[in-house]
């Protein structure tokens, strides 16, 4: 809410600049910003139109003679449809500044001299929705005679300075001028001074024919009414109008405006009804039915339902309680008797209704955050007082009670020692009591214990911690000296999982892969494409877009999307990885398991063509090399096997391997299927994905240092011809199975198929290394092992040893 300095000064002697106040209030209470109106306006005066005649050469322009407080009247050409003789209007003089850099110049309009411009409020920067309806399509007319030549900007409140409080939901007590005055007063150690409304008791006439019924007792805390007779509905006086439009409220008429004015003054929404349009002078607060309708205006009717709390009169719904008053029983120019309602409704009910019908506004904003139920009657009386002041009422009723809940102060007990300990400060009892007094709280002291009585206007205060916050913020956080927790030492660090993940990532970084982070919520297609864990899909109930609707089941789609994004930006040589969670759900559960995965992708060239090297196109083996290096770093007992597979949809059936350890699948590596690749707008791309938890579960190798071998190793080369379908991995596995205890290593040095090789066959060459750590190997021993290897290969795979 914007706190007008002009208004605030009625309660508080503050003469600081708005900038200074906003800064100080921000630091002690509520985030605030200074607002200065009309800084772009100049040379605006009150003008009195003394005669008017049509422009000789125009069918819509008029020539106005205007008294602007100078010795001679001036002529101004005006095209507004509502201009008339004897109006007091806003005149922008020759040289006047208007918003957006507009400048007014004396000149001629169709041959007639015009010494300025008669203005509408919107031309002065007031939002059109805040301009009284009668003046929205034309010039503004002052409601009463003003002195010609007087500064119009000041008169219209357009020079006001304000502090804009951006409140947190707990500080709705400052959504009224009085609450704000308490807050700003506490900041400056000044107590605000208020005068309470005084009604003319001689005008009170007992009323017994108004019927009030509260049927939804649990949603209504207070419901007080007064009726007033003999109102003269008209425009509000200027002082009220200007305060309203500066608050963002459109002036309507003096009755509605008085109610809105009191809402700003006390923070308490008040509603007014045309008493004579109520059915049998009755109002009922009750739940709507699913058939109820609320007519807002000629165009909009809202369908209500049984969750809506409404104000009814007979069969007619007048309004949505605490949210909006519809068209029925509105106060109009013909109204003479008014029912004024001051109530407190359940905040949650109001908030939901306002949300449901998309009708959030000034009243619902206050009810949903809470209002002071100690100010219900005083607000009601204030509206009566204002209307009486403006229209001189014939009479008014006593307070008619639909429901009343006595406002009780809150009592909070607090320990001086505890307050100081929790803050890390050393305030004395007297210092604390003085701070609480600035806030208008009264304190009784008994040893270490403070008993604090808090008025109902601060309904946010309930426990000792609230009190501590008040003391601390008024004392000033800038007076708090930082310390570090002084308790027992603790051992900080990562979890073993996180340590492991950090290691995996460091390997991939050193392999030249950039780390990416993509979205956990993906499209249905992305959730489906690489669901190798065969998870049930998990969907969010109200997605913002189809792109982010399902929880991901693989990291691969995010990587492919990243490659496509980069390729579209002319970067096609990509080496990236992501470490993140996938969501694996079983059908019987709502909740998916969150499984840490790591995945990578290579696309385009490795490196770039340079002056001395040629770029190499990435291939399956480049991707596999990275995976193998990563697995090597795991330092586990298990050996990893790469088994060819054509079962992973969207991967190349001839260039994909499942990776297993101890016969359990831990991931895969492969090339994207050419069709999928094309659809995804990427070049040849190789990917891998590994389940971090599966890798972490593998038994760690117990590394014991061994001295370098003392005895020489012996090597043998083995060349075989074998069916093309047999994978080298199978051959190597068989060699190890039959090579005896001294076979140390097997390296493939040749793969060949083509001329000189039987069709459907390939030639493979292996380098075998034998070593006995404790003795020199004899030729005999090696030859025996070598023969066993060859025999087995012939037996198992029908190879031809060459």
């Amino acid at each position, binding site marked *: 809410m914007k706190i007008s300095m002009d208004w605030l000064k009625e309660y508080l002697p503050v003469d600081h600049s708005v900038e200074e106040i906003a800064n100080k209030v921000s630091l002690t209470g509520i985030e605030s910003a200074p607002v200065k109106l009309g800084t772009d306006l100049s040379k605006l005066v009150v003008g009195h139109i003394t005669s008017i005649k049509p422009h000789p050469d125009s069918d819509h322009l008029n020539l106005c003679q205007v008294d602007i407080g100078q010795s001679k009247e001036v002529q101004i050409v005006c095209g507004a449809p509502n201009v008339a003789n004897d109006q007091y209007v806003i005149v922008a003089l020759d040289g006047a500044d208007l918003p957006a850099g507009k400048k007014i110049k004396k000149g001629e309009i169709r041959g007639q001299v015009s010494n300025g411009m008669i203005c509408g409020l919107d031309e002065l920067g007031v939002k059109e929705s805040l301009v009284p309806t009668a003046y929205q399509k034309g010039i503004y007319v002052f409601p009463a005679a003003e002195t010609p030549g007087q500064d119009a900007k000041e008169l219209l409140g357009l020079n006001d300075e304000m502090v804009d409080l951006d409140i947190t939901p707990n*500080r709705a007590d400052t959504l009224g001028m009085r609450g704000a005055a308490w807050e700003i007063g506490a900041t400056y150690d000044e107590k605000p001074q208020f005068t309470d409304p005084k009604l003319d008791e001689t005008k009170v006439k007992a009323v017994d024919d108004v019927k009030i019924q509260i049927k939804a007792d649990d949603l209504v805390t207070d419901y007080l009414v007064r009726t007033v007779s003999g109102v003269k509905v008209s425009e509000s006086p200027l002082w009220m109008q200007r305060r309203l439009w500066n608050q963002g409220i459109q002036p309507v008429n003096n009755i509605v405006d008085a109610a809105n004015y009191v809402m700003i003054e006390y923070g308490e929404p008040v509603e007014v009804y045309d008493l004579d349009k109520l059915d049998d002078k009755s109002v009922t607060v009750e739940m709507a039915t699913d058939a109820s309708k609320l007519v807002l205006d000629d165009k909009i009717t809202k369908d209500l339902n049984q969750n809506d709390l409404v104000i009814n009169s007979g069969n007619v719904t007048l309004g949505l309680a605490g949210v909006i008053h519809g068209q029925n029983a509105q106060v109009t120019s013909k109204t003479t008797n008014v029912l004024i309602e001051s109530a407190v409704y359940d905040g949650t009910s109001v908030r939901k209704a306002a949300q449901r019908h998309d009708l959030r506004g000034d009243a619902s904003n206050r009810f949903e955050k809470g209002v002071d139920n100690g100010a219900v009657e005083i607000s009601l009386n204030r509206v009566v007082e204002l209307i009486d002041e403006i229209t001189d009422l014939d009479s008014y009723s006593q307070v008619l009670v639909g429901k009343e809940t006595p406002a009780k102060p809150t009592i909070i007990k607090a320990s001086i020692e505890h307050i100081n300990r929790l803050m890390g400060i050393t305030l004395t009892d007297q210092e604390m009591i003085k701070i609480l007094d600035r806030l208008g709280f009264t304190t009784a002291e008994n040893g270490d214990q403070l008993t604090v009585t808090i008025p109902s206007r601060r309904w946010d205060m309930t426990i000792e911690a609230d009190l501590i916050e008040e003391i601390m913020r008024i004392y000033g956080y800038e007076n708090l000296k930082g310390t570090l*927790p002084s308790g027992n030492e603790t051992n900080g660090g990562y979890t073993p999982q996180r340590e492991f993940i950090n290691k995996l990532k460091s390997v991939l*970084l050193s392999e030249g892969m950039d780390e990416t982070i993509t979205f956990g919520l993906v499209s249905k297609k992305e959730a489906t494409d690489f669901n190798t864990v065969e998870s049930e899909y998990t969907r969010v109930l109200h997605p913002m877009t189809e792109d982010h609707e399902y929880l991901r089941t693989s990291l691969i789609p995010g990587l492919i999307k990243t490659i496509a994004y980069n390729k579209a930006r002319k970067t096609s040589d990509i080496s990236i990885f992501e470490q993140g969670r996938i*969501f694996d759900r079983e059908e019987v559960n709502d909740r998916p398991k969150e499984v840490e995965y790591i995945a990578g992708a290579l696309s385009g060239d490795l490196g770039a063509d*340079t002056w001395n090297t040629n770029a190499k196109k990435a291939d399956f083996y480049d991707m596999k090399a990275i995976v193998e290096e990563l697995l090597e770093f795991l330092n586990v007992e298990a050996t990893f096997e790469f088994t060819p597979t054509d079962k992973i949809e969207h991967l190349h059936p001839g260039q994909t391997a499942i990776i297993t350890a101890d016969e359990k699948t831990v991931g895969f590596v492969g090339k994207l299927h050419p069709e999928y690749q094309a659809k995804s707008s990427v070049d040849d791309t190789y990917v891998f994905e590994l389940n971090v938890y599966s890798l972490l579960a593998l038994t760690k190798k117990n590394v014991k240092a061994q001295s370098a071998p003392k005895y020489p190793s012996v090597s043998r080369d083995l060349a075989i011809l074998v069916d093309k379908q047999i994978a080298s991995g199978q051959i190597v596995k068989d060699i190890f199975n039959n090579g005896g205890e001294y076979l140390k290593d097997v390296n493939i040095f040749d793969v060949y198929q083509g001329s000189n090789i039987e069709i459907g066959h390939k030639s493979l060459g292996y380098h075998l290394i034998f070593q006995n750590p404790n003795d020199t190997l004899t030729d005999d021993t090696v030859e025996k092992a070598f023969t066993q290897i060859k025999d087995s290969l012939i037996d198992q795979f029908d190879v031809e040893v060459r």
Partner: protein
Amino acid sequence: MSLNDRLKELRASGIDDAKRAEHLKDLNDLRVKLLGKKGPITQALRGMKDVPKEERPEIGTLANNVKKDIQEAIENRIQEVNQRIIAQKLQEETLDVTLPAQSHKIGTKHILNQTIEDIEQFFIGLGYEVAPGYEVEEDHYNFERLNIPKDHPARDMQDTFYITNELLMRTQTSAQEGRDMDAHDFSKGPLKMISPGIVYRRDDDDATHSHQFHQLEGLVVDKNISMADLKGTLEALCRHVFGPDREIRFRPSFFPFTEPSVEVDVSCFNCGGEGCRICKYTGWIEVLGAGLTHPNVLKMSGIDPQQYSAFAFGLGPERFAMLKYGIDDIRDFYTNDVRFLEQFKGVN
């Protein structure tokens, strides 16, 4: 010609030949030719028998000197030739050292993870555990245990991706607080934890909003934890991240799960407090929210708020990175343009 003269002549011509030799091979040949057993000096000494006996020792000495001088001349020349060869080799091997080298590229860690790890390392040094959390969380931990019951207006403030009525994409890493307090054995000492991770909100993605972003929660529960401890801790953090000269200030704020609650500003690292575009001419930049844990939150974990107290804070790694490196579009973190990613090589 006397033998004496003959030897002197051989010396003169041998030295001359050595000096004129251009190749190592020629010099070796010269050595063999002049000083070998079949060489001219040996040949000449055969004439010794015609020399009078008393002159023979003198001739012998001369012959040795001649050999030595020739030998020396050859070796000197060898050295000269060698030096010339090396000089020529060096000349030939000279490279343009300004040409670029072929690098082995090392990948770049994502700037968000660099930012998070920098903060993690800071807190690990202060004895904090790094707790992972769940991205799919129960309503119970994400809201109710944080003093945000059903129907609380704060639930409107953070629009949530629900999966079922009770299950949601967590909207805040504070959801980890309840889980960690429940699990902690306070007889073993204080709870000091940070919990970084991904959170989700129902926001449209634009330059300043992302439906997915990161948070890092911190929580310390012990006897005698104070607001001053919170200030000192965050002061040290801000100096670690934004520079040793930074000051911080607290402003009152509101969060349902802390009381008192504060917003924390750090003095502008760009202008040092003078006022500039980054700090919107205030000299201060809002960086995080914090407070003393609300007694209700402690009670829900079975912790007696009279005996224990706690502070908590939550910060946004995206915001930290955007401020520190002048990143102006949050979407850049998630589109992963490698040119964007690689500019942060080694910044942390």
